């Protein structure tokens, strides 16, 4: 019960501080749009080539944008040593992770929501009829990215070469999510769309395994 109430209280804090500063949302939205616009010059919109490459480019843009988000996730807690005050206050340190990864997932989904219309226009790929399943893929994919990213962010924030360490640890860890998400999205955006439920199930299992690992070992990541 206290895990839930602590998580909700901390989530409220995460959302309030972000919507007050809008640092992460602005940075990631602008970044993701720039990447999509630049990549759109490399392929002819509406062609088979665009359909083939666009899903991969979409997830690559999401991954890069999310790494910007994770860079500051735990680093912000170091400015005034607020991580220590949180550790002193919560009964279960997992609530700190849970609040942060839910907030990161929400921010990421919001960024993707802003980006999707631009993606459809720049690559001339109709999305309307595929939106419900596409949202599901974005949700399980983004959740996987957020869980792993939040954990790595806690590790890298305490390291000296944190800017280098985060992508170095994060990218290999997220390769399976990136590959499967791109494949599932690619099949979904095909002229003859197929919903790859096995791929979606793989992403859900990835989320579950990493969430369990974070629940079991998260406390050690916060220790000094």
């Amino acid at each position, binding site marked *: 019960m*206290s895990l839930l*109430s*602590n998580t909700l*209280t*901390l989530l409220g*804090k995460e959302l*309030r*501080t972000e919507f*007050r*500063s809008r640092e992460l949302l602005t940075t990631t939205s602008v970044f993701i749009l720039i990447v999509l616009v630049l990549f759109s010059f490399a392929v002819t919109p509406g062609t088979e080539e665009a359909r083939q490459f666009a899903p991969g480019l979409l997830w690559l843009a999401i991954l890069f944008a999310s790494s910007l988000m994770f860079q500051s996730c735990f680093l912000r807690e170091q*400015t*005034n*040593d*607020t991580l*220590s*005050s*949180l*550790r*002193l*206050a*919560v009964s279960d340190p997992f609530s700190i992770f849970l609040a942060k990864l839910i907030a990161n997932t929400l921010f990421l989904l919001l960024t993707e929501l802003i980006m999707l219309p631009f993606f459809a226009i720049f690559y001339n790929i109709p999305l309307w009829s595929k939106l419900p399943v596409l949202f599901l893929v974005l949700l399980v994919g983004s959740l996987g990215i957020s869980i792993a990213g939040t954990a790595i962010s806690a590790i890298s924030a305490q390291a000296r070469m944190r800017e280098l360490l985060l992508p170095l640890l994060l990218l290999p860890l997220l390769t399976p999510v990136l590959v499967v998400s791109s494949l599932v999205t690619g099949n979904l955006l095909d002229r003859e769309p197929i919903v790859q439920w096995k791929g979606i199930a793989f992403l859900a299992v990835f989320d579950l395994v990493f969430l369990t690992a974070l629940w079991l070992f998260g406390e050690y990541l916060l*220790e*000094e």
Partner: protein
Amino acid sequence: MTPLRVPPTGLRFENIDKRYGGLFALRHVSLAIAPGECVVLAGRNGSGKTTLLRIAAQLVKPTAGKLTFPGADAAPSINGRPGYVAHTTMVYDELTAEENLLLFAKLQNVEAPAARAEELLREVGLIDRRDSLVRTFSRGMRQRIAIARALIHRPSVLLFDEPATGLDPLGISWLAKTLGEVNRSGCTVVMSLHGESEISALATRAVQLDAGSIVADTRSGASLHSILTFGSA
């Protein structure tokens, strides 16, 4: 300050070692602090004061040894946790003074969090700035909100790491008065200090650390003075 609703708690360090790689930050530290005592930790920079306080706050695990809180069993768990004030404020710059206190009150399941936050804002003299973001605060105001944050759950032990850092004489007087009230309310106070001041006058005991070990421990006035002045050397 509101008196404690629970029996005061002491601290007992038993043969504590803390090693960072090959470097000993603390070596065989044994210290028993009675409930309600006001103890000053003195010593040069790097002598292990902050490490000892962070171990007492349970933010750092000792490499060896044991930390216990005598009397804590009788108290509700929430008051068993020490209040800790560090060099930094440990509050969020992007939240207002009231939002910060409410956040930590809710996290610690404090009864009537809004009323407790208001009570503390009044006690530390920040009630008029309750809606101001902490980042707009002066050093003295930041220290006040840091103390309020540490006291929000009515702790029975308060740990204070160099409380006078960056404060002007007026701020030091206010802090000495506040710490005195906290201590008189039944709270055990342990603080690290450099030199003598109005704050050190509150101490009933002084413990001197050197290179991670306790080299002096006294309750007598003259020795206390000698330890504190050595600390500032």
